């Protein structure tokens, strides 16, 4: 499994073969605060890179989660639907949102590495 890649909209992608797992970053969860509701896309739904794919809500506000990569949803994480706080507890692990079968694996190269993302956060702070 390859290292995680990161988007400017604070999603992470982990590519394993042609299946990408997508979630939101630890930084995103820290900004959102307590997550109380999530909505994940059904299997079979297709997205272009940058398309609105899921919803995450904190006490304060609702935010869209975008798919940083094009593909068709193969699976969603029902665990974060029944217990949204899982996203706060383990955002880059058990708090994943959905998996897609990617249509263009090269898109992953347009995303940031962990170091690049950390630098992006420092610069945009």
């Amino acid at each position, binding site marked *: 499994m390859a290292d995680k890649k990161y988007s400017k909209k604070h999603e992470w992608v982990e590519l394993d073969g042609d299946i990408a797992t997508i979630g939101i970053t630890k930084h995103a969860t820290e900004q959102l*605060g307590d997550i109380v*509701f999530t909505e994940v896309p059904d299997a079979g739904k297709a997205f272009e890179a940058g398309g609105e794919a899921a919803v995450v809500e904190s006490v*304060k506000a609702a935010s869209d989660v975008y798919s940083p990569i094009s593909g068709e949803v193969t699976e969603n994480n029902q665990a974060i639907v029944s217990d949204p706080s899982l996203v706060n507890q383990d955002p880059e692990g058990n708090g994943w949102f959905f998996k897609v079968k990617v249509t263009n694996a090269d898109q992953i190269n347009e995303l940031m590495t962990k170091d690049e993302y950390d630098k992006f956060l420092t610069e945009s702070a």
Partner: protein
Amino acid sequence: MNEAATKITELKTALYSFHVEHGGKMVPFAGYQMPVQYPEGIVKEHQHVRNAAGIFDVSHMGQFSIYGTELDYLPLEKIVPIDLKSLKLNQSKYSVLMNKEGGIDDDLIVTKVEGGLNIVLNAACKHHDVSRIHEVIDAGKTKLHDDLSLIALQGPKAVEILNGLIPGVQDLVFMNGASFKFKGTDIYVTRSGYTGEDGFEVSIHNSLAEEFCKTLLNNNNVKMIGLGARDSLRLEAGLCLYGHDLDNKTSPIEASLSWALSKKNKEEGNFLGSEVVGEQIKNGVSKKRVGIKPEKIIAREGSKIFKDNKEIGVVTSGGFGPSVGGPVAMGYVLKEFSNEGESLELEVRGKRHGAVVYKMPFYKKSYVK
């Protein structure tokens, strides 16, 4: 307003540095830099207030006094329809500042004190309110206090904790106040709040505000609470937020706040906007504020409300209620759909979701009467 301008005009309460020291995440709110939350987060803060006690800095709110006798302050009834003659010394009443169209310019709390009235106004409205009040009250007999902080201690343990510091506050009943001393200086304490819990609001000189909070925080049951939890607590309690659930185009009857106008004033119809209010009392209103319990989805302010594919209203406050363990909302619906138990649909992100009209509060209050 652009960001630079916002920063220049934002004010700080006397507790600003104290909030920052305690990890408060400061955000612009009603022209002030206020803490929206502390490091533990909104849900934990909310639950702490329901289970123990929390401190809220509400010093951004306007603390206004009218000095003098009945003769001086009775004209206030023309714009704030409460029976000031029957208000007892140290008694507080919730009411509204009316405009001539029958709308609400602000909601406020009036307390009769020795030498006049104290009025607490919403931060975003306070300067407008003061100019409105000066239309009926001699400006020379009034003061908007910028030397005073307002600190609320709310929660089931508030009484025991505050009484340990300010002996005697335990004898106050809900919506009553009295003068006390802290470090030899006068403070005014009322038993009131905006959380649905028992608690107090303490008006204290700015120079003592930090020391007062520090002393309270020595008790492990006390935590600092931000505006985020203040909002979820008041929403669960079914209390209105001005500018959202109330505005200058909505009448107190539509807002289900008929109880905030005195019987005497309603009968005499002697206040600004009373023709509109009187007509609505007689013939009914077309829309009404109600509590709404969504089945699953969080519907926020602005979500449209439908019944049988017909748009019948809008959500004015909505979010997640940590003590309810699910979404809660309030909004305005056409009168015929305002009965408890009426099933509705709320539009969220383009889809309709089930909800019911719910009798507020969503969370049962425990005020001391």
